[in-house]
């Protein structure tokens, strides 16, 4: 075992949600007395982990682009595989974003007491595996968590997503599993020729030797499987867009983040010219997908699909940003993704809340926001931030990415921004539907968001705004 981080802190932040899950297993749930033991344990676990993450931020040097705080644990002798953890700014920001957004999701389902224990268990397990993915510093560790996050996600989607066609869920899982298998083969090949590489050294994998072309293609394919880019968008779009549970939707929307993160980590130092010329096709396909999904989101009346379309469009946008391999973009993509994850989480929370009120009171929600002031404020903020206004770190990085894409291909850039506009317009349209007063709407002031939840969301709003002004404001230098 080797460590240069104090107290195996990275392992701790992976284990804490897992331990929380075990505690939740033992928590007593009594529907009659309306206790929320499992909910309380889950929230406490995440908050505890947030404190740890905050501490880790203070330990690393955020100006350094390389991985820091290495921890290495021997695992297998034959083959020689170890678990290696390390972090940098990007991974920590992803961990923080995932924690915050899942915390939001958990808080939003507090009153949903049906099987709450199971829901918390799988959420914490998912959180643990996602955290492991972002702290993984070598290829095998990365793969283990890349695959492991599928299990809790599948259970969350199947049990709590409210998805009616359960036979489709199998397809969703198998599709992602196939991608994981492709990654598995690639990693075994890397291991065969290069040994157990750390992620920052994967750039050394050559193209023309040792099945390099296959390795890079397999890596790219496995990550693309997770990202809803045409023609791989079908399973993710057909499942995710129909999820009604906000926590499950958020978890499902974190899945493409693993693909984006994979691309950010696994990128060759050099791409042969005859291969790099095909990248234009990636850009074209990505842009077409963005346009396609944004248009469908625009015509679809379902608010959930609009949010899904927004999420998809921006995931592909950031993917194209990573493809540009601009140093400044790569340095700051973490902030953009952080802001983006929180924004779509906030959007989903408020939207799901409105949907729940609709179901509860069997009323349409046209004009609900005219009477529900707290909800109106949050919804407006989330929509503005999603539309690209400078309310979060997304703004600056969107500017960077767009400028780089415009500099390489102006036509692609134009269609890209058009897709972003259409996706944002869909959200704006939905906001206006909720703000156009309608006498038939039975929802009123009393159905507004509870104050405690509102205060928590204000904190999230604060985090978002600070991510724009000074993202690492909470890091106190030692």
């Amino acid at each position, binding site marked *: 075992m080797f460590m240069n981080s104090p107290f195996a802190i990275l392992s701790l932040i992976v284990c804490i949600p897992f331990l929380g899950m075990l505690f939740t297993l033992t928590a007593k749930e009594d529907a009659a007395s309306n206790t929320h033991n499992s909910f309380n344990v889950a929230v406490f676990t995440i908050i505890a982990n947030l404190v740890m993450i905050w501490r880790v931020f203070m330990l690393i040097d955020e100006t350094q682009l390389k991985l820091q705080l290495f921890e290495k644990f021997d695992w297998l002798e034959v083959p020689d595989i170890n678990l290696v953890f390390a972090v940098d700014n990007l991974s920590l920001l992803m961990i923080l974003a995932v924690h915050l957004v899942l915390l939001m999701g958990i808080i939003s389902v507090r009153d949903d007491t049906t099987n709450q224990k199971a829901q918390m268990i799988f959420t914490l397990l998912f959180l643990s595996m996602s955290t492991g993915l972002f702290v993984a510093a070598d290829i095998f560790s990365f793969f283990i968590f890349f695959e492991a996050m599928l299990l809790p996600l599948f259970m969350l989607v199947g049990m709590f997503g409210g998805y009616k066609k359960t036979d489709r869920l199998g397809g969703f899982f198998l599709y992602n599993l196939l991608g994981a298998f492709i990654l598995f083969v690639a990693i075994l090949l890397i291991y065969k020729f290069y040994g157990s590489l750390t992620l920052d050294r994967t750039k050394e994998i050559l193209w023309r030797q040792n099945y390099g072309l296959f390795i890079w293609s397999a890596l790219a394919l496995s990550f693309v499987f997770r990202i809803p880019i045409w023609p791989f968008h079908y399973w993710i779009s057909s499942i995710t867009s129909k999820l009604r549970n906000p926590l499950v939707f958020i978890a499902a929307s974190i899945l493409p983040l693993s693909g984006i993160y994979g691309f950010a980590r696994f990128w060759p130092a050099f791409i042969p010219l005859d291969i790099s010329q095909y990248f234009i096709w990636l850009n074209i396909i990505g842009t077409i997908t963005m346009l396609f999904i944004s248009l469908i989101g625009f015509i679809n009346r379902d608010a959930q699909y609009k949010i899904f379309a927004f999420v998809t469009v921006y995931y592909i946008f950031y993917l194209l940003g990573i493809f540009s391999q601009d140093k400044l973009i790569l340095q700051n993509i973490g902030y953009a993704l952080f802001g983006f994850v929180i924004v779509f989480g906030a959007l989903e929370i408020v939207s799901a809340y409105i949907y729940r009120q609709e179901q509860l009171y069997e009323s349409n929600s046209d004009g609900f926001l005219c009477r529900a002031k707290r909800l109106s404020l949050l919804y*407006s903020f989330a929509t503005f931030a999603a539309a690209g*206004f400078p309310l979060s770190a997304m703004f600056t990085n969107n500017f960077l990415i767009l400028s780089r894409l415009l500099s390489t291909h102006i036509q692609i*850039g134009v269609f890209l*921004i058009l897709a972003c*506009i259409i996706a944002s317009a869909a959200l704006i349209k939905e906001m206006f539907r909720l703000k156009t007063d309608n006498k038939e709407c039975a929802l009123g002031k009393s159905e507004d968001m509870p104050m405690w939840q509102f205060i928590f969301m204000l904190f999230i709003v604060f985090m978002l705004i600070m991510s724009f002004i000074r993202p690492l404001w909470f890091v106190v230098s030692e």
Partner: protein
Amino acid sequence: MVVQLFICLIVLAAASLLITQGRRRRIWSVLVLAGLCVVSYLFINSLNDASTGFIYQWLPYESLKADINISSSLRMQQMFVPLICLLAALVYLNTIYASEHHSLHFNTLMLLNFIALILLASSHDFLQLMFAGSMFSIIGFYMPDLIQPKKKIFIFNFLAEMSVFMALAIVYATTDSVSLRELSEYEKAGRHQDLVACLLLFAIGCKCGLFLLNGQYFDLKDVLFNRILGIMALSVPLSGLVLADRLYPLFQASSIPGKVLPWWCLISIIVAFVSAVINNNLKSKVISLFLALYAYMLLKISGNSNDIYFFAPNILTVGFIVAVVFIIAFEAASGEKDVGLLGGFWRYTRFNFVLSMIMVASVAAIMSNGVADAKSVAFGLGYLGIVMLVLRLIYFGSTRADEKVVAFAKNVGPLYWLPMLLGAVFLMWQNDSWQQREFYMLFAYATAVFLFIPGMWAIKIGNLPILHNDILSNIYELVLINPLRFLGRILWLVFDVVLIEHNIIGSISETFSAIISFLHSFQESKTRNYILSILCGMGIIAFYLGYYVYE
């Protein structure tokens, strides 16, 4: 001193937001106004101070160096002076305006607008510029009190922001710098200059409400009058103007703005004037007149005038005064906004009438300082003429108003006329009107139009049904929105449903189901299956043996 002004405005805005909306809201509003007056006074007094400004280092990267800059030149500070007076006047108007139930919130928005203006005017880089522009758009969303105008304002501004965003992204891609000082580099060697220019033209057209892009403003006709004034005078359109000024080098990089913008502004002025004449809605007239003013200011900018800091406050003051004149008429007529249903009000509100004429004199005083060339003379005459035409329709001629309206018609109280008079006198004194021949000529012209040009034809045209259709919105819906919807539906059906779901996934699923059913039937515990399996196995063995021996 701008920094201090900025901070004080933030504090005032926060205060006016936090103070509860209770019974004493107007008293709190007065306190905010008092605070604003104090701040303004201090600011005006410190004008000649050499202020250091404030720079916060925000993004430190080599190729993305951006600071938050709140420093300004003396010229800019001089621009702020009349604008801050306008702001104070607006806050005052909000306080005394009877229909404004949320005066505190609206005051907050006005203060925030000014904060955004300071940020916009003192920006040295793209990011601050876009941030300030976006602030205007977001604040603009909250300013109307009705949802329909909110929608339009937001959508137009959103599109404008996206255009600016994209244009500046292209510029950044070329110059690798976000500094506004580097725009000249782009002028020399930038790519896609025409595209950038077109995008910015579109953005400014949306914000300033040029012809074809002014739908957002005309929808304000049902909003409260004070809010209309707030939006038109110190909000989004002003931001468009400042944006045009700050990004003018980008216009110069392409030949298109030079050809398009002057004509576009001219057409916009003509359309705005015509609209102001034939539209019977008093509020729409105010809006049209403001749009004409902005188009005129843009025309001046396109003519390479870099004196926006001087003429913009003056022109906006003109617009403000005209709007207030119409407000008092509106209030006197118990909120009747259709000029076709007014008329002869000089009999019932003589004081209002006199007050209006004094305000017109102050307008003439301001204009007399600005008439430098034939274009400005033509514009001034046209503008003033339309104002007088409208006043004639309100105050002259036979009474067309309802009996109740006539019965309740009254002159405005001292809360209105006192500051108006003082303001008019101040403006006339400040502009040295008494010594200007142009002032007397303009006032005489205005009086002549009022007395001798009939206006009933305008009312008749204004009553035409076609003018009450939102033609442009229908066109946008037809040309833009419906095709998008159609395209989206087709794409979804063709690719997702037919190609992927039915063909690919459906066929794979059915194929494997058929194979599995087939396999199940051959694996049941039946004699036939046992024999078949043994034969199959033996066959494999024999075949393999034969193959191996052969090899």
